[in-house]
């Protein structure tokens, strides 16, 4: 297990290296000039060129890459072209909103989607099953921003129960923090509920036909115990895989929800950085997202050993 973990961690190095080279080159090949964006509309060519030099963008590409690469492996992700702040500080400030949104969304998703999938499987072919899977299909089909606006209209504007937009840090109190997360998490969780509920239903259905389920029932166990202890636990591997990926997607891809609800997270930082060609910020967040994907993959793989004793590394 220890050796496996070490191997997997070492394997992340070439992956991250590839991502680093790829994103660095991609940004330099993309049209757009951070110096021109920084300088503003009135800037003359000479002023833009001056800024370009200050940013080090006139250096040969290889030299730029080497400087950035060696700084990065020493933990220095550079200074944002725009905010004149260290990118690590910017990311640190944006991490909490994105993590909060992701964790609340995943908790909401799991607490709704898994029971939904189990019930649908248990009641296969019934109206309950059709209703739940119908909701699931709808969840897939409606874009997040539509759900977001609908929720805002009902719960913030018409009922005035929840705030329209914004984010409160957890240090400001648990209640304000969760209040501002309810609507965005709901909006974001719909598609994941749809997906995970379907996956749960399929997995549980496969397991429900197994001999050990019949045995458990024959022993006189209650239906809820049969479902939770025997069916769900044995169906857990694919469900956990999907939940893990959902979490990774949430951390790296909640741009629309963060935009609609004005949550100052990593998604918005990425969009702003891309629109302004803030190279250090883009490079840093892409590397971070890649690292998150790799590590979540690893965690998922390790989780399998807990869920299924037959799996050994």
């Amino acid at each position, binding site marked *: 297990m220890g050796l496996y973990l070490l191997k997997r961690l070492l394997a992340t190095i070439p992956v991250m290296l590839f991502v680093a080279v790829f994103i660095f080159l991609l940004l330099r090949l993309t049209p757009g000039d951070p110096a021109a964006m920084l300088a503003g509309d*009135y*800037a003359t060519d000479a002023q833009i060129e001056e800024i370009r030099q200050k940013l080090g963008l006139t250096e040969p590409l290889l030299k730029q890459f080497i400087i950035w690469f060696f700084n990065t492996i020493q933990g220095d992700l550079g200074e944002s072209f*725009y905010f004149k702040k260290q990118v690590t500080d910017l990311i640190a400030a944006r991490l909490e909103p994105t993590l909060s949104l992701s964790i609340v969304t995943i908790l909401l998703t799991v607490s709704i989607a898994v029971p939904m999938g189990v019930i649908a499987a248990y009641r296969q072919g019934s109206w309950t099953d059709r209703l739940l899977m119908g909701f699931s299909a709808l969840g897939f089909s409606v874009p997040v921003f539509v759900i977001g606006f609908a929720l805002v209209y009902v719960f913030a504007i018409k009922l005035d129960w929840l*705030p329209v937009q914004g984010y409160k840090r957890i240090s400001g109190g648990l209640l304000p923090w969760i209040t501002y997360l309810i609507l965005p998490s709901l909006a974001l969780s719909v598609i994941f509920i749809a997906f995970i509920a379907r996956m749960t239903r399929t997995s549980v259905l496969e397991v429900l036909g197994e001999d050990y389920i019949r045995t458990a029932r024959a022993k006189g166990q209650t239906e809820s115990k049969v479902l939770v202890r025997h069916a769900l636990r044995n169906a857990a591997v694919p469900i956990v895989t999907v939940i893990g990926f959902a979490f990774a997607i949430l951390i790296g891809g909640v741009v629309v929800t963060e935009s609609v609800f*004005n949550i100052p997270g990593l998604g918005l930082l990425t969009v702003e950085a891309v629109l*302004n060609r803030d190279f250090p910020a883009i490079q840093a967040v892409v590397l971070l997202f890649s690292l998150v994907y790799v590590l979540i993959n690893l965690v998922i793989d390790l989780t399998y050993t807990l869920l299924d004793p037959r799996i050994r590394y």
Partner: protein
Amino acid sequence: MSLFTHRAFLTGAVTAIALSLGIQAITRAAHAETELLVVPHADPKILDPIWTTAYISRNHGYMIYDTLFSLDANGEIQPQMVDTVTRSEDGKTVTLTLREGLMWHDNTPVTAHDCVVSIQRWGGKDAMGQKLMSFVENLSADGDMNIVFEMSIPTGLVELALSKPSSNVPFMMPARVAETPGDEQITEYIGSGPYVFNEEEWQPGTRVVYEKFDGYVPRTEAPSGLAGGKVAKVDRVIWTPIRDIQQAVNSLNAGELDIIESVPADVIPLVEDAGAAYIKDPNPPGLQYTARYNVLHPPFDNAKVRQALLYAFNQEDFLEATVGNPDYYTVCKALFGCGLPFETDAHMEGLLESNFAKARELLEEGGYNGEEVLLMHSTNVPVLTNLAPVAKDLMEAIGMNVKMESMDWSTLVARRSKKDAPADGGWNMFITAWTMGDLINPLTAAFLNSSCESALFGWPCSEEIEKLRDDFARAGSHEEQMAAVVALQAAWREYPTHIHLGQWASPSALAKNVDGYLQGGVPVFWNISK
């Protein structure tokens, strides 16, 4: 068998509703009465209003810095930090005496030396500042209170330049800050304006906090435009950028915000119908759409072809396509804007009326033979998106061969500075917008600068236009300035540098309890109470 009971569901639902209502009460109560929550038009990323021309940095500048002169609501120049102006008999020495009691935010007094260094930094960066400095033989401080300009000619340019309302505004900074080279951003944000920048609470992209400066001594005159007494009537002003305008309006209507700085015309009915807020324009002259030619490459290297578009275009088509509501746009032929000090229709007869026959005639005279026009189309700035298709349509109506390339604004900004031929990554035309504060006279109107290589992208090159701009700078009276403006419009008609496509408004939305929002061409937050 049921896995969930109805009772459990109901208990949960009731608890959730009660909890949310309680939480709402708590968060609303926490919203202090003396805080003004503002949604700015952009996120202020760069806090040096001299280093960049970005409007949001300019607006930040007005919060924390003060100016020597300002324009009032009528466009008249008024002293602001200055108490008196004295001129020598030959008119070449101009002495500005500072008001008593001016303090920096670190509670040290404002001195003439601070102002001299600030003027020098601004004069090295800003086009109008450079023009002013070209007439300055010596700029010095006489004691702590007097700023002395020794000019090569007698001119009214000192007050005109130092009252420049838009980017780059000549904001005064402490000497130690203003000594920062012009090509580097300042790192200390201390001014002498009515609000103090709270750097500790600054969360880039999320929140900018300004606090009332207790040491500010406002002028005694009533506020008017950017001039008069700058009285901070709220304790804190908090800027919270919201990218989605619909959500910003929802939030304003729900009572969560006080001001949205810029509301597109199509969203205004949502504000008005909800009844929780009202519309007021801080910038009555508004903005101007402007099409820019690149004169380096065919076909716009030919003045006749450029003139053809003055006849082919009409402002209403562009304004209808973008603004749509005539209440919020103005057709205006005057090169330096309508409702502003240098408004005149001289030499504009027959132009901008979509006279296609005359336009075709000019194309023929210019020898246009179907060269491709590369028109850059910005797609991610909503107020600009619909302009290029209208231009393409009008150019095609007179037989021009137009290739419209769509791109995001960042790409357009990078590409417009390229002098290469359009086929090699350059361009022929694009359309943008300026606030009228940038276009009020021949020196601030950057697209009129025709100094060839030194001109802005598009690089027009006309000795006559440059001479007339210089005449304007040397003019000693409004009449002389007006004469230069009229002559300039004639010269521009012969050698078009750009086409003005109409004025439009981007007003603000204010909560019903917000009062005192000034109309100075720039959104400012003194004098506002709630």
